[in-house]
Each structure stands twice: as structure tokens, then as C-alpha cells.
């Protein structure tokens, strides 16, 4: 089973704290925008490198990372 996170696009306010927090740098600024027009983040893990450490979710001030699954 792969580790993965779930991002709620409607909650992301584009503060990008998670982008720097991820130890594997798997969260990137996307081309999608929220209703304020800010570019929100996306989870990009093609190689299955996610540790499931939940540091991104712990850091996110808006609970936009709603789920973290490990194993």
C-alpha cells in the first residue's frame, strides 16, 4: 500500500507552508486556483516517495490536507 495525502482544494489558501515542510518536496504549487484566484498546492508523488509522516497536515493552518494515509 502506498502512502498518500488528500488535499481539499476548497480549503487551501495558498500560504505554501506545506511546500517547504514536506521532507521529500512532494507538494508543489499547481496551476489550479481557489476562488480568490490564488494558485493552490497539489500532491505530486509519481515515485511513491511519500513517507506518510503527516508533517504537512500538522503544519497546514487551514486543514486543507484532510487525510494522511500510511501503508
Amino acid at each position, binding site marked *: 500500500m502506498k502512502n498518500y495525502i488528500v488535499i481539499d482544494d*476548497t*480549503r487551501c*489558501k*495558498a*500560504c*505554501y*507552508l506545506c511546500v*517547504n*515542510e514536506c521532507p521529500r518536496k512532494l507538494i508543489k504549487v499547481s496551476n489550479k486556483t481557489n476562488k480568490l484566484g*490564488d494558485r493552490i498546492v497539489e500532491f505530486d508523488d509519481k515515485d511513491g516517495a511519500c513517507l*506518510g509522516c*503527516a*508533517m504537512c*497536515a*500538522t*503544519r*497546514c*493552518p*487551514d*486543514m486543507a*490536507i*484532510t*487525510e*494522511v*494515509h*500510511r*501503508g
Partner: protein
Amino acid sequence: MQVFKIPEVFREDMKYTFCPGCDHGVAVRLVAEVLDELGLKEDTIAVASVGCSVTIYDFLNLDTIEAPHGRALAVATGVKRAKPDKFVFTYQGDGDFASIGLAESMHSALRGENLTAICINNTTYGMTGGQLGPTTLMGQVTTTSPMGRNAEYYGYPIKITEHVALCDGTAYAARVSLDTVANIKKAKEAIKSAFDVQLKGLGFGFVEILSTCPTNWRMTPEKAHERVRNEMMPVFKPGVYKDIRG
């Protein structure tokens, strides 16, 4: 295995109304996680203050009372004395707790009320536009101290946790920070301890949380955390200042 989920005490489909990058969101989540873990959802009455912290009643599915500015602990005292079997906590900012509400706050600690107070310290009045507050650091520029805070005109910032810890009625007093994930985990432990002393009937529990206000500090969320680390934490030193549980 799911290792992170939204705490059950949050209202369904709630969305924070805080500014992007504001640490209030983390602080409210930590309170919610601890309420979940201690199974207190059905037995809790929260008291909201005035300031950005007031919005807690929009997010948590709890019975909540809104108190007049600064009087959250006075209201909480009444609630707890009328309903001693309920778990009662306040969620306040530094302006509410330590400026207009300093008398109510300190006397709650001095009386040893069996309550818990969570105080968010972001060194400014966030909701009203970033004015000088009781915890504004020396030299800090705000909308009402445009040349920076100086002692001659504005006096000195208050170190809230140290004062609360000096009160004989205080059972637990700690200051924590949210600048790193490790410190967020420590903050959660502190909140849990402050809730625990109330559950054990030992007295007043208090946690001061060093938080950011990226909007009024005019900084990116990342830079705001650096400011907490480099400017706030040397003045407001994190740690457990009192814990009578030993």
C-alpha cells in the same frame, strides 16, 4: 492506516476564516484534537473572547458562550461554578487576556478557578488592524507605534505565563510555540496537560501559544515563523513554568 484526520469535534464542512498562514488554525485544531482524545465533546462549554479568537464558535461543534471583551474568564468562572461537572475552557488572544481582561484573567488564576485558558500571543491586535498590544515587542512597528515600541512612551511587553505561574491558584502554566512541527507537538502536550489539571480538579490551567499574524506583520507565513523563532522566543521563552502534578 489513516494517521491524520480532521478532529470529530469540528463542525461538518467548516472552513476557517483566518488569513492565509495564520497559526490560529493550528491552535484551534490542537484544542479540537485534545478534546477528541480526552472524549470531552459532549461535556464541554467553551467561552469565546473578542478578537480573531472569537470565531472558534463557528468551527467547533460545542456549546459556546461569547463573553464581553476581556471577560472570558469571568464568564467562564460563572459557568464552571454553576455547572462544576462540565469541562470549561476559554480561547483568547493576548489583547483580550492581558490588556482589557488582565484583572479578570489574573484573578481567575489567583482564585484557583478550576478552568483552562488558552491564550494566543501574536504581539498585536490582529482583528482590528495591527495596533500595539500588551505583548508587542520592544522596537516593533505597529499602526499605533509607527516609530517602533519604546519604553518611554509605551512601556514594556507583559510576559503573561510568568505572571500566571506566580499565582498560587495556578496548577499548570506553560508557554509553547507553533513555529515548527516539533513545537506544534509540544504545544499539543501542553494543552493536554492544562486540560488534565482541570479534569483532576487541581486548579487553573494555562497555555500561552506564540503565534503568527502574517497580515499585520506584513510578512509571508514562512518569514512570520522565522520572526517567532528569532524575535519572540528569546523574549517569551517557551517552557513549562508551573506544574503542580510534579
